[in-house]
């Protein structure tokens, strides 16, 4: 029941949200709320609502922090993961969830992303990836495909794009996954696993921006863009049953990398415990 969800987990007096008609960000925000709701009510592994802190940077994605009714901090552009690092270190009990965008986390904040992944600090990063800078009106981002158009790429984008989930894997993330807005149920499950994962987790969720990216690149309306996700992004079971030939030009919706490397705050707690024991002894 979506309306219950809205009442329970969103700040109703701050709605409606500012996103454009057809924007995928609202779907991702809802996926995050559903994932949290299911975890709060999980009999085996319940998490506490007051232990959740939502951290965001700057951009369309980052407005989600203001709409979700949890502890929330809307920080500076690119720095959400760095603020989140301090929050998690100060209180490791907290579930620190970073809501960020492709520009926020892989351009201006790219350095913080790779280092948090390398440290394996227990944050959950949800990237609202719409291949464009929406808030400022349609400039190309680090995930805009090569050759695509943007207001700052009027002749086509010369850059090659990042695959953010692979980038995080390469930087050592102990949990890296991809979601989208078409496969909502699968994406919710991935977000739940990411939140429960002890170490650093990243979910690169493919959003859609019909207003800027879609229009500039003649991708059609929101429905057409969703159809593209349906036809080109493939959930795990089906993806791995496909032949290698069929997988060409398709992308996995699911977990790219996973390991149980020790989590940073737990490792640091061991140092603190050892120091205090020495001090007392």
């Amino acid at each position, binding site marked *: 029941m979506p309306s219950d969800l809205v009442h329970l987990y969103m700040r109703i007096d701050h709605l409606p949200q500012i996103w454009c008609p057809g924007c995928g960000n609202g779907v991702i925000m809802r996926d995050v709320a559903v994932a949290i709701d299911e975890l709060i009510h999980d009999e085996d592994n319940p998490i506490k609502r007051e232990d959740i802190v939502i951290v965001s940077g700057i951009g369309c994605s980052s407005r989600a922090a203001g709409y979700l009714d949890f502890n929330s901090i809307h920080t500076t552009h690119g720095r959400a993961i760095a603020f989140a690092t*301090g929050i998690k270190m100060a209180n490791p009990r907290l579930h620190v969830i970073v809501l960020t965008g492709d520009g926020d986390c892989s351009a201006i904040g790219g350095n913080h992303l790779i280092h948090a992944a390398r440290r394996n600090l227990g944050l959950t990063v949800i990237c609202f990836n719409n291949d464009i800078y929406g808030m400022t009106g349609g400039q190309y981002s680090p995930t805009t495909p090569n050759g695509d158009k943007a207001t700052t790429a009027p002749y086509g984008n010369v850059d090659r794009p990042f695959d953010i989930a692979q980038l995080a894997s390469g930087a050592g993330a102990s949990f890296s996954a991809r979601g989208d807005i078409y496969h909502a149920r699968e994406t919710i499950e991935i977000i739940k696993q990411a939140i429960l994962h002890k170490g650093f987790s990243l979910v690169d969720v493919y959003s859609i921006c019909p207003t800027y990216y879609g229009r500039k690149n003649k991708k059609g309306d929101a429905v057409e863009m969703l159809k593209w996700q349906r036809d080109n992004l493939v959930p795990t079971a089906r993806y791995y049953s496909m032949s290698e030939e069929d997988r060409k030009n398709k992308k996995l919706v699911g977990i790219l990398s996973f390991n149980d490397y020790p989590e940073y705050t737990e490792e*640091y707690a061991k140092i603190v415990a050892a120091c*205090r024991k020495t001090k007392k002894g």
Partner: protein
Amino acid sequence: MPKTVLMQGNEAAVEGAVAAGMRFFAGYPITPSTEIAEGCALRLPQEGGKFIQMEDEISSIAAVLGASAAGMKAMTATSGPGFSLMQENIGYGAMAEIPCVIVDVQRSGPSTGLPTSPSQGDYMQARWGTHGDHPVIALSPATVRETYTLIIRAFNLSEKYRTPVIFLMDEIVGHMREDVELPDPSTLKINQRKMSFHDGANKQCYFVPDGQFVPAMKPFGQGERYNITGLAHDESGFPVNSSEIAGKLVGRLLDKVEKNVDDICRVEEVEMDDAETAIVCFGGTTRAVMDAVAAAREAGEKVGMFRPITVWPFPEKALRARLPRLKRILTVEHNHGQMLLEVQRIVGGALSVDFLGRIDGTVISPADILAKLREEGPSHAE
């Protein structure tokens, strides 16, 4: 009896901060502040605190603000190049009213400059480094012992006024060791957070009762849900696009410092009661000035020292009180004349303000100051 120890300025910053209750440090190595990060890495786990070496100075101040929002007294330390990188988030701390202490052990600039040489070239940056009108409190120590006691005050002011406090050190004091008799820890006054919001207006997180300037702070993770943002916001902590609310907010941020200058400002005045010449200085420069004042007094010259300990806001009232007796002011700084501009603004042409400065990374000596004092007539040479 308190024990006398040999201690370095940077080490005193660590020990003072720990005594003040600092339990989180995030930083990035940079000369001449690195001993502070090293000291925190060693000491914090012993006190149950946390240290993290971040990937740069931008993330260091961001992590500090995050840790403070989650309830830990937090600090970072850097020098000029890193201080420049931190500026955006220092403004965030001022806007979102998150307490923290930023230590800047100044070195010669601009740019990479002379990394191991003393300077006081960040005085104006400490005031105006971040964009937009914002409150600033900056303190500057002259001795190793004062580094210890004053950084405790930096934390206390930061907590009391919910604003980042700049601790403006310099290479002279930061890298110097001297004998220090530390105060008995039981005599220290430490401000703690109230840990609940002010009553009234539905306990809104940025609610400020009439007659007060500062909202009370309750960290994340203690039961209440609220929002923090660097956007202009109302008392509920949510962004607004109202010029009235934005104007009121920034006005209050500025007022909490401007209307409390008597509480915030501290000055050390030496031989000032009958002084005809006042030497104005701050931080490590004080050490040469003290010897120069003693030598001038020995020679029968009526010279005193006026040293702002709170360097921002400048202790204007205290300087004005001295003006009627004074015939001359000599401002001495390891820069091209930065505090000089504040002194000139306050003096306003009432008497001559001379300047002795240095921008080559070498230290101004007592002899340099005596020579300047004894120069005929007002001048403005370097």
